[in-house]
């Protein structure tokens, strides 16, 4: 479904993504895990056509994202991390906007908006401006925007960040159903538990490189995914030199 090969991105002297190649089979949930600043967002931005890579190529169902964007982007639903939304629109206006830009007609968009709002528990919020939403609600409306044109592939950057547990369980259920019906999900997170629970395959990204990838069982080996991750990422736990924190100034 998604094939990336030799992806490279440099920001000045720092190599954010260093020749990463991935292959995501159709009908799977693929998770990228890594510490902050590992290059997950950079990688996913290049995959979705938001950031031009310095080298390498990406294709979605055989269509190259950078030379044939019309086909490749039509098949992709995107949830970027830390990018703004058009937040002076109400929730329903934003959904309508996202759907219409994807070429859906008004009736389909309205129908799907209602369904998505119900699925994500946003019914009461649709009439409010997105700028007044909490972070978790903003994440959910952005997720709804990513799904509205029923793409074959969902690329979600940190979809569970600041989402409450009930909504997270809800989203997981939606994603599992979507995959069962033949959809494919690529997501990133720094929550090992979550990735371990919902993904079929994972790749551990540290400093712009994939250190391990494969099915969850392959990658975690005998321990938990978190142990394997800490071993690869180089666990560095420093709690020394902070004694002043325990001196409690009144």
């Amino acid at each position: 479904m998604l094939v990336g090969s030799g992806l490279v991105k440099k920001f000045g002297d720092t190599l954010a993504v260093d020749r990463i190649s991935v292959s995501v089979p159709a009908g799977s949930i693929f998770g990228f895990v890594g510490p902050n600043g590992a290059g997950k967002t950079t990688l996913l931005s290049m995959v979705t056509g938001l950031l031009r890579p310095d080298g390498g190529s990406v294709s979605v169902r055989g269509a190259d994202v950078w030379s044939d964007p019309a086909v490749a982007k039509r098949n992709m639903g995107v949830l970027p991390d830390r990018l703004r939304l058009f937040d002076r629109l109400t929730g329903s206006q934003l959904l309508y906007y996202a759907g219409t830009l994807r070429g859906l007609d008004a009736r389909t968009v309205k129908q799907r908006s209602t369904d998505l709002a119900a699925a994500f528990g946003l019914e009461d919020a649709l009439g409010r401006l997105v700028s007044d939403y909490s972070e978790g609600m903003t994440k959910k409306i952005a997720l709804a925007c990513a799904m509205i044109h029923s793409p074959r592939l969902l690329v979600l950057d940190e979809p569970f960040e600041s989402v409450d547990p009930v909504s997270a369980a809800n989203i997981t259920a939606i994603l599992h159903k979507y995959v069962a019906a033949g959809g494919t999900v690529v997501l990133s997170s720094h929550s090992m538990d979550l990735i371990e629970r919902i993904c079929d395959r994972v790749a551990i990204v540290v400093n712009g490189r994939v250190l391990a990838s494969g099915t969850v069982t392959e990658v975690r080996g005998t321990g938990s995914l978190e142990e394997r991750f800490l071993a690869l990422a180089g666990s560095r736990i420093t709690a020394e030199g902070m004694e002043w924190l325990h001196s409690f100034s009144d």
Partner: protein
Amino acid sequence: MVTQFLGLKLRLLANTFRRSPMQNLGIVIGLIYALGATGVTVAGLASLRRVDPLLAGSITVTVGSVIVLGFLVVPLAFGVDHTLDPRSFALFGLPTNRLAPALALAGLVGLPALFITAIAIAQVVTWARDPLSVVLASISAIVIIATSVLGARISSSLASLLLATRRAREITNLIVLIALVSLAPIVAVLASVDWDRGGLRALRSVADVAGWTPLGVAWSAPAELASGNGGVAVLKMLIALALVGLLWLAWRALVGWLLVAPQRRERGANPVRLGWFGRLPSSPVGAIAARSITYWIRDARYHTALLAVPVAPLLFVIALAVAGVPGSVLALVPVPVMCLFLAWSAHNDVAYDNSALWLHVASNTPGWADRFGRLVPALLIGIPLVLIGSPISAGVSGDISVLPSLIGVSSSLLFAGLGLSSVISAAFPYPSVRPGDSPFAQPQASGTGAGLIQSVAFFAAIVLSLPALLLAALGLLNPDVRGWPLAALLVGVGLGLVLFTLGVVWGGRIFTRRAPELLAFTLRQ
């Protein structure tokens, strides 16, 4: 703590100037204007020293009341000076008893406080007729300064409390806009009053009333003393002092309340209603147009740009009128100038989106659809403006035969200017204020080229309209030849539409090619 607050306020004041050259120019012009107005007021008050006390009192009380009213109303309307909002200090755990005086004193640092101090001192000069008057007028001066500064702090805090919801702010903005537009007729009415005969009586009756209101009571006390009403003077001074005490109590209570008050939440609108999205066709162009219109209505950054559209020709006309240009020519100026500014206001539209632009990139939106959709609001305002404004302008100028030229030049400026803006906003975006920030805030990184891009976008639109302008000028200079105005109309509209289409197509190509780079640019802001 007071010293820290004063230092903070001084630093904030100095930082006002760390902006782009264009903004600095605007600040300097505003400053010169304010200095001029203050200077004139100060000189006027000082020269009243030799005027009969009754007349002098009428003038000081009226002018003074208007100034104090300004201190109360301007923050309410514009919500200025959020820099030392009590709310900002809620998390520091400072006791209200120390925070309230410190914030009030910090209010003394600033240009408005400086101006009112100068004016209040000039008022002492007005009444420097005998020692007792000097003493009373000096107390008045302190009371005036305290009333103005405390009043301004209270109303700007009230504004931040009451106008926290977006709907409330939208309504206030609308009211301010209407007030600005209706200023012109008021000035006209004032100019028509026969000041020689009825004027003085009108002034005195205004002052009589204002002298007993909180706005003018402190101004009125020394005037009463000079007129020989010692008892009334003392009474008025007591009222003024009591008023400052009340204001102080109100401020203290307000600071205490703001520190713990929750933010107001807005009730949601009917979710089924889509606003402009429901009225325009459901295609990418229609949706982008609806989004743009919604933003022009809701986003304060667009409001400031739009405000220039009626205000710029007003200033232009005033300047030309002062220079002695006849009214028949002046009447032709507003419509083309408004079209020029309207078209120009769209020249950095992409930067206004900030990183929300990703949605267009991820959806592979056609470049021309993005370009055209963004220009729709300007067209919706501009086309009726040309069609309705031009006949009115021509009528006022007294020569209906210039109508074709006027429509030609205005359309050329509007359409060619929009085409130009479409190319420039895709090719040369520069950092702008981020969504949700105050429209007067400083962009995070002022580009070096911002001023250059602004000027090019402005003057190139004029250059592109030169053919229509030249033909119109020929028509004005040779009123006997009937053909020139018609030629100006055809060339203006025709060339304008061609350039508009070219701009949308060319800008669209640039957008399609550079969309990821544009997104990267917005992320760097």
